């Protein structure tokens, strides 16, 4: 039977249920490692939960999607994520209208970027989606037309500018990840994924360079993580695939879930991998490398069935992967689990 490595803890109650959107949970840790907050999107609003510094209790606030020019229809948020840079932490919200950036506690909006509707063909959906801090200096955000906007973030203040627009994807961006561990030489430090399942591997800097493209295999890649030069990608057919970032070679294929994968996360200190899907399951895996054979390894550690819940967000709450949190469609709580 399944190994019980983790046990369920007390949930955090929310005022509203999470939306059925990819990667719909973000977790912020303080520099010392303690938990600082959670956030998840629900239609036009974001639920922001902040942990008190003493570790006891949580406070709640809601942020709204910015309307944009015509205030006729409300905008829907597609995703929210904290971006941790050396000098500051920003909370980034993506929506049908554009990109909002706030101070990490959600108190002040420091930047607004409206999506250019004319860039998109008339019948296509318009939205931003896919958020990652990269290169110690940038925040990358994807769009429904396949563009990746690279924002240059100053150490403080609101003078944020678009430094580059990456144009390698032809389908809507689903997720973006920076290298979360140590990149081997030539492996690149950013991966972008799209609706068709194409993955692009980049090296970041003043100018971003495309290092390689991993072609799609007929399936959406909804979530992607990069750790120690290994790309872990979650797909609509329930598979997790591991690729070598430097070469684009497939190293492992896991029939992980019975439904569409919605979220992946990596614990950078240990290489634990977390996956959550519409099938109600959250799995914990262990990534590794066999030093003798130089083969990438993945091993199953724990299966958790979140009863009657289509998982839409899953994140580790600490760098070792000793605890994780989960959100589900239409469920107004954040489920929490920790090592037994």
């Amino acid at each position, binding site marked *: 039977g399944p190994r019980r490595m983790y046990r369920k803890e007390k949930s955090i109650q929310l005022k509203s249920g999470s939306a059925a959107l990819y990667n719909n949970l973000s977790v912020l840790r303080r520099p010392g490692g303690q938990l600082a907050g959670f956030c998840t999107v629900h239609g036009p609003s974001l639920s922001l939960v902040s942990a008190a510094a003493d570790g006891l209790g949580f406070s709640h606030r809601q942020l709204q999607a910015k309307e944009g020019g015509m205030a006729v229809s409300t905008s829907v948020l597609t995703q929210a994520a904290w971006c941790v840079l050396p000098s500051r932490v920003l909370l980034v919200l993506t929506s049908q209208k554009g990109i909002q950036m706030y101070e990490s506690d959600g108190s002040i909006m420091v930047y607004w970027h409206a999506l250019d509707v004319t860039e998109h063909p008339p*019948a296509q959906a318009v939205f931003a989606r896919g958020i990652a801090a990269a290169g110690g200096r940038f925040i990358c955000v994807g769009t429904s037309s396949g563009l990746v906007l690279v924002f240059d973030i100053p150490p403080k203040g609101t003078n944020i500018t678009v430094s580059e627009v990456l144009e390698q994807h032809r389908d809507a961006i689903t997720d973006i990840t920076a290298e979360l561990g140590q990149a081997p030489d030539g492996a690149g430090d950013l991966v972008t994924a799209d609706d068709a399942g194409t993955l692009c591997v980049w090296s970041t800097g003043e100018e971003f360079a495309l290092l390689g493209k991993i072609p799609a295999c007929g399936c959406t890649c909804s979530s992607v993580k990069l750790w120690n030069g290994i790309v872990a990608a979650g797909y609509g*057919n329930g598979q997790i695939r591991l690729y070598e970032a430097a070469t684009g070679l*497939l190293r492992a294929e896991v029939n992980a879930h019975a439904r569409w994968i919605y979220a992946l996360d990596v614990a950078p200190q240990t290489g634990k991998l977390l996956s959550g899907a519409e099938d109600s399951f959250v799995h914990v895996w262990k990534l590794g490398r066999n030093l003798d054979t130089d083969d990438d390894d993945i091993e199953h550690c724990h299966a958790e069935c979140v009863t009657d819940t289509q998982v839409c967000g899953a994140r580790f709450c600490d760098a070792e992967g000793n605890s994780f949190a989960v959100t589900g469609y239409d469920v107004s709580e954040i489920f929490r689990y920790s090592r037994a």
Partner: protein
Amino acid sequence: MSARTLPLLFLNLGGEMLYILDQRLRAQSIPGEKARKDEWTDVDRKRVMNDIITTMFNKKFMEELFKPQELYSKKALRTVYDRLAHASIMRLNQASMDKLYDLMTMAFKYQVLLCPRPKDILLVTFNHLDAIKDFVHDSPGILNQVDETFRQLIETYSCLSAGEFQLIRQTLLIFFQDMHIRVSIFLKDKVQNSNGRFVLPISGPVPWGTEVPGLIRMFNRNGDEVKRTEFTTDGNYVSPQREGSFDLYGDRVLKLGTNMYSVSRPVETHMSGSSKNLASHAKENIAPNPLAKEELNFLARLLGGLEMKKPGGSETGFRLNLFTTDEEEEHAALTRPEELSYKVINIEATQEPGRRAELSRILGELEVAEPRPASSGKGEDLLALMDGL
């Protein structure tokens, strides 16, 4: 988000509405030769179904529907179904209409949630259309209209990618968020829990194109498989047997979207204090004019497609009650929780003068005689037959 969601939402909700009305009319109908003037007969039932289906599949209306656009607000959409339900001689009180709409939306929410693949929403839609064609199988004119729409669905959706279908599904799930009304037939079949959440099975066939979970394969740099391991879970999945048909005719395989009602299975809902998260319902639609210009166009076309239903001779509008008794219906109207109120839009109160004149004119042409007072309405005399439901 997805600009192609509205046709699927409209057709599937319409299909569920027809299932419920058909079941209710059958449950209340009397054989033709035995019926009094104020009692439902099979002929009446067929007429109501035909009238509604004809209106639903009106050519101009369908053209408007299939244009790429954002989903309408819950309020605007509810108003459309109000009009649709009254496209014939049948009348529904507010409480019955509310109940009808609750059932329709929870049923389709369930179907969207449980679709194995996002693309299977199309199969659910085809199931509804197959059933609608069966309702009008002896009216070739209406059958033709439905087939036309069928073809348009195939043309519009066949080439969409899995990712685009998932976006449609996500758009629908956002629309259905926070709705947890409990439906008797779902509770009895154990597909819904007493807290209003749907049961998600962790066994059965995996979606077409997905492998049964459990296998891990590892490859060396030459692409050779060098290691294979397995893991187990509480899930009990099997491979699917075959894929459903996306053609005009064919075995859809999927059961979601087929008629789950029959004369012996009731259409009940429970209103009593369920979810504490109903507050977000009230935060809907902050725009000053609840009907945007596009929505008015949409409704105008729908109303424009209605024929004048002036009753001739001894015909009058007949009331259909979705509850067991008139008292129950009245009680439901009085006790409906505020946060679940649909706040149906009164079209005549719209602020745009040009539009208002146009719609008033159309509405004026559709005047029908007031239904008979309740005491001699069709609902009351058939109460005995509704026993036990």
